């Protein structure tokens, strides 16, 4: 069968199965098994089916496009693009629901479904208590008691299914509008799941914060979409790439160099076009004239700004979703949700969607935009890593770690490391999901998030500790240098190598490399700090320690599976080129293999081609450097938290201004509260006040004036008009009163009057009309 028909079918089914599960749980959830327990199995069945379908698709893809072709930019593997049905059509403009499938899509599908499957199974154990009536110790009612509520087991899986559907839709999306659609949907799923404990004020606040901060990013994304839409008239990835990277442009004959599309040039040259149209009566002649002018306008740089705006706008959305500086504030708060949610959404998949979109949209980014991406990523990784140093909440440490790692990915993409950045996305998804699930296991066992209350749990929960150690090693990039390593070793090395290559080309941006390298040390430090504080040493809280226990098998098995992935995700199948990295290399978008340079605004900036970083003279020193800084970080953590040669309290007191600064997360929340939230609320009150005071006041004043005038009018009326009318009425009334006296009611009088009247009439007639009556 034709791959172009099979893959959309397979992936489409894999995409829609969770939706079916969602619908089923919505309507029948509470009735599925005891207390909705069946809902969990339905959701797991759905995601398992998705996983199977995705892996089938992956296999089909690999059979059709075997890996190992090297960097063959001349014959890129064409993506399969198409559309299912249109959402809206206006003239030649169309927004549709479609698909765009290439190696990246297939790989993402496999990764998302496998990780999600593990997390679903894990949730079966973790959310077990939702099957009964739940006592939430964190919520105190008005009468002083703690809250007791019904369990919401099925609802959890309902949201998870919806999320899987949305996430897969985001991945398969064939155009940016569809990406935006599912972008919002994963956002709302995140909202629902962060706020899963709806009774907790902190949870609903965090949910709101997450969604609204994301919307700030979306605002930028909409601006980007508008720029793109107005310029290109299409949202389809396929068509966008064709327009931005037309064949035959660029240094090499096959190079798809970045080109400002005609539409954007025309948009920027609207005044010139208007002039042409006014000077040329015939539309066809005018179009001809415009076409002749187009290259000249493009050379002048018209429309390039629009392309930059489009790129920055799209990246803005990614900043929000991937929790990059300055919109990173929502992710740590999002840890209010259940831990499997944190693992799935806020570590492995949804937050990586921003990185994914940057990767997907890579051909459209100009060097200027890429530099912004790199700088933002760099700042993010540094800020988040520093905050993670002092956090004591186990999930928050992991959350900041996630932010920091996402920063790494952005940084890599920003300096031209397309494969490196996305490779890190995949490896990170596995080990960060693992880490979160391990922390969930710990929380499940101890009932607390605070690391200072843990300690010595290694003996109580060996499996959890072991798998978490694997995760820590993976994220720190452990391995035997130049020989073999865990997955993180490969991906982080790739990033640093590309950075090193970049720094060599652009000395003025070399600081990006140093910060990233320093970040690697920080990563190792805070991860092992976490592990040491949790599992080693003596128990700090006897009550917690006594309560702790190893988690049930349903939770441990996913940990082990993920740990295996965390180890091997970076490896190729021995003896072949079959692996994640070659797959991504194959999926590399058009025209990016050659690097990028000569932006209009930053002509000196050069992004080196990625294959250059594989060169021996770059690769070896960077690997050694990365290993040594990671070891340094590990040793520092061990000195303080394992061997206890230094007292952490003493150090924090010694550097108290720094410590306070980091403990308060660089005062970002307070700053935003002051800069944005309060002014907006003040604006809201102002608007309401204007309504009440100014507009309504005006209306009331107008009404008052009219009423005043009407009172005057009324006075006139009563004096003159009414006076005349009343006088007439009075006279008539008086006359009536008089006349009434004749009406005696006595019949006999009436007869008498009739008779008298007759006589009178006759007399009158005789005197007045006698001649007439008598005739001639």
């Amino acid at each position, binding site marked *: 069968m034709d791959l172009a028909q099979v893959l959309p079918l397979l992936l489409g089914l894999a995409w829609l199965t969770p939706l079916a599960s969602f619908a089923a749980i919505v309507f029948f959830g509470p009735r599925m098994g005891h207390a909705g327990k069946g809902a969990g199995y339905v959701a797991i069945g759905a995601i398992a089916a998705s996983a199977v379908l995705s892996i089938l698709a992956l296999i089909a893809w690999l059979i059709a496009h075997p890996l190992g072709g090297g960097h063959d930019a001349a014959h890129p593997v064409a993506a399969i693009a198409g559309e299912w049905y249109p959402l809206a059509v206006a003239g030649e403009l169309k927004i549709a629901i479609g698909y765009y499938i290439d190696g990246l899509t297939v790989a993402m599908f496999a990764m998302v479904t496998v990780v999600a499957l593990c997390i679903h199974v894990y949730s079966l154990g973790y959310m077990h208590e939702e099957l009964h009536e739940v006592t939430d110790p964190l919520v105190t009612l008005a009468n002083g008691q703690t809250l007791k509520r019904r369990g919401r087991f099925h609802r959890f899986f309902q949201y998870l299914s919806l999320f899987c559907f949305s996430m897969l839709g985001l991945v398969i999306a064939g155009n940016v509008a569809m990406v935006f*659609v599912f972008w919002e949907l994963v956002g709302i799923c995140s909202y629902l799941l962060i706020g899963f404990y709806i009774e907790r004020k902190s949870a609903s606040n965090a949910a709101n914060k997450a969604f609204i901060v994301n919307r700030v990013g979306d605002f930028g994304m909409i601006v980007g979409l508008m720029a793109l839409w107005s310029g290109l008239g299409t949202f389809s990835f396929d068509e966008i790439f064709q327009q931005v990277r037309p064949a035959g442009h660029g240094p090499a004959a096959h190079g798809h160099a970045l080109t400002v599309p005609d539409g954007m040039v025309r948009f920027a040259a609207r005044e010139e076009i208007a002039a042409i149209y006014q000077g040329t009566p015939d539309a066809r002649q005018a179009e001809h004239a415009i076409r002749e002018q187009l290259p000249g306008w493009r050379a002048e740089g018209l429309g390039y700004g629009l392309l930059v705006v489009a790129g920055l706008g799209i990246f803005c959305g990614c900043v929000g979703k991937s929790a990059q500086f300055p919109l990173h504030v929502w992710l740590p708060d999002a840890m209010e949700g259940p831990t499997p949610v944190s693992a799935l959404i806020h570590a492995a998949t949804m937050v990586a969607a921003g990185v994914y979109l940057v990767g997907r949209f890579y051909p459209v980014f100009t060097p200027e935009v890429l530099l912004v991406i790199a700088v933002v990523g760099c700042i993010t990784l540094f800020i988040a890593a520093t905050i993670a140093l002092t956090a004591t909440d186990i999930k928050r440490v992991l959350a900041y770690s996630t932010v920091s790692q996402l920063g790494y990915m952005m940084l890599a993409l920003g300096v031209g490391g397309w494969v490196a950045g996305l490779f890190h996305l995949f490896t990170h998804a596995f080990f960060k999901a693992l880490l979160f699930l391990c922390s969930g296991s710990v929380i499940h066992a101890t009932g607390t998030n605070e690391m200072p209350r843990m300690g010595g749990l290694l003996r109580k929960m060996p499996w959890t500790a072991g798998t978490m150690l694997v995760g820590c090693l993976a994220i720190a990039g452990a391995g035997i240098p130049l020989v073999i390593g865990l997955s993180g070793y490969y991906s982080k090395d790739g990033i640093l190598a590309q950075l090193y290559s970049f720094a060599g080309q652009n000395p003025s941006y070399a600081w990006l490399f140093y910060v990233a390298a320093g970040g690697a040390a920080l990563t190792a430090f805070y991860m092992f700090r976490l592990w040491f504080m949790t599992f080693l040493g003596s128990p700090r809280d006897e009550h917690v320690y006594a309560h702790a226990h190893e988690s049930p098998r349903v939770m441990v098995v996913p940990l082990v599976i993920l740990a295996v992935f965390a180890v091997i995700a970076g490896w190729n199948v021995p003896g072949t080129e079959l692996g994640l990295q070659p797959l991504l290399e194959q999926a590399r978008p058009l025209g990016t293999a050659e690097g990028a340079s000569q932006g209009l605004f930053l002509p000196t900036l050069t992004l080196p081609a990625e294959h250059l970083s594989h060169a021996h003279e770059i690769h070896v020193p960077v690997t050694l450097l990365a290993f040594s800084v990671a070891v340094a970080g590990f040793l520092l953590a061990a000195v303080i938290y394992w061997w206890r040669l230094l007292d952490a309290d003493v150090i924090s007191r010694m550097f108290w201004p720094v410590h306070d600064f980091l403990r308060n997360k660089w005062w970002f929340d307070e700053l935003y509260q002051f800069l944005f939230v309060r002014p907006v609320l003040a604006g809201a009150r102002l608007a309401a006040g204007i309504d009440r005071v100014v507009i309504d006041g005006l209306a009331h004043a107008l009404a008052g004036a009219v009423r005043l005038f009407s009172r005057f009018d009324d006075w006139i009326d009563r004096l003159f008009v009414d006076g005349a009318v009343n006088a007439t009425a009075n006279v008539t009334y008086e006359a009536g009163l008089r006349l009434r006296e004749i009406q005696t009611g006595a019949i006999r009088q009436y007869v008498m009057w009739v008779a008298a009247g007759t006589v009178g009439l006759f007399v009158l007639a005789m005197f007045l009309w006698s001649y007439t009556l008598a005739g001639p």
Partner: protein
Amino acid sequence: MPHVVLSLIVFLPAAGALAIAFTSKDREDFIKLFSLLITIAVFLLTAWLAIPSTGRGEPSTFVVGQSAMQQVFRIPWIPAFDIYYAMGIDGISFPLVLLTSFLSMLAMAASWNIAKHVKGYCILFLLLETGMLGVFMALDFFLFYVFWEVMLLPMYFLIGVWGGPRREYAAIKFFLFTLVGSVLMLVAMLALYFSSDLSKLTPSQQTAARLQPEELRAIAAARSSSTPRPVHTFNMLALAEMGQMKQSPFDTPLLWGKSVQWWAFVLLLIGFIIKVPSVPVHTWLPDAHVEAPTPISMLLAGVLLKMGGYGIIRFCYPMCPDAAYDLAWLVCALGVVSMVYGALAAMAQKDFKRLVAYSSVSHMGYVLLGMGVWTATAGNAFVSDYWKMGMNGAMFQMIAHGLSSAGMFFMVGVLYDRVHHRDLDNFGGMFARMPLYSGLAVGIFFAALGLPGLCGFIGEVLVVLSVWNYDIALAVVSASVVILTAGYILWTIQRVYLGPEYKGPHPEALTPITRREVAVAAPLLAFAILFGVYPQAVFRYMSPSVDRTVSQLARWTKEVKAPRLAGTDALPAPVAIAGPIEPSASALPVAPSASK
């Protein structure tokens, strides 16, 4: 027999009202049931009309894909003033007719709790439905005006008698604001009437305007007469044809150097934006909504506000294109200001219904904005696609807002029926107490939030995406509204539905949602989802007519306005613009083949 069906749809509720008038007022249940049956019958009739016609023979139902007016009939009503009883439907009005009959049905079902003067309520309700349907179907300006006023009066009483504590104030405010608007509309209508001249139309335009034999005779008489005397008309189709002529009769100067159509446009626009409502003439809306009973709020937000948008697309633009072109910035600016201002004001509200009312102001701003983006200019090579998108988005937004706002008001009403307060700070914990209700409500609120997959998203995104080509600053500001919208809606959900427990009075009254209430809310949510997932269900009916309107205006811009702007009329343009509109000759701004 088009006149039978359309007339039946319009006047069936009125006939029902008449029948109820002869029923004893003590039989309340029967009256309610009867009214419900009438509204259901009207809905079924309109739904029957919506079944796409097979296209063979005389179409008895709606012909999907036909852009021109359908089921048109014109019968002399007051011949002395050229007033006709003329009705018809097209893709612009028919979806609104469907929305009206659908919401009326649901609103009647939501009226079961009305206990005061049930008979009077039902009579006024049905009269209101007649007025609303008539407004959307009328093809005669005068008839339109009559229906407009017919709808106004029952509304006044429905708010003023069955409303909340400050109902008199709210009713009078509503009435005065709307009356100011309709008076201005009347002036504009008369100005257009007395400037109109049927004898200037070409034969093809006469056919398009469905002129009747007696009118053709009048034209012939006027043409052969030695002293030419204009043949006036209220025919909306003919007025639109005249407005878009090269030498339009509406171009004559009227006052202060402005033409008839400039004044007519301004007056009509004021009349319609009061109804939309747009800042700064929106303050009647929160008061009216807060005081009106729940079903009336549903209709007020769901249908009445749409008349403003409908009026703009049906009257302002086709009849006064010159003024519309010059003042497009005003329409857009009003739209954007309403969006931002409404959202901000909503955020500051403490009253649940008031908040929803302000959200309506914000959402209806999209309608104005989408209609106003006149992108078919010389700089864009007279390509109207973005404007088409904006107009389609605006129309879709009207339908979507009709569903979501009616739903929101109903959801507020369900709570208010139970606890008799609307103070946002005194709610909370609804999810635990009324789970089904909360699920439906959150779904509907998400639709208002513009969440993809629900109807609110489509309209908003189409409108917003179309703006950039008109003005970048407006586009950026309008895009920022998504943040504010998320802010106030999520904050509301948090305060009402989330949280550990209910904080307000009468906690014992919070019984689960009844089956009847589900029957009202569930269809709204179902359609919100359907239109969000498959918006073509609406666009298939709507787009051809909307596109045609825009194409005509774009062509007018190219052939009439552009030479005017250039100060030369030398272009070899046809005398009038009529007949079938072919797709514009020029391509999209982007021709992919050109760059290959």
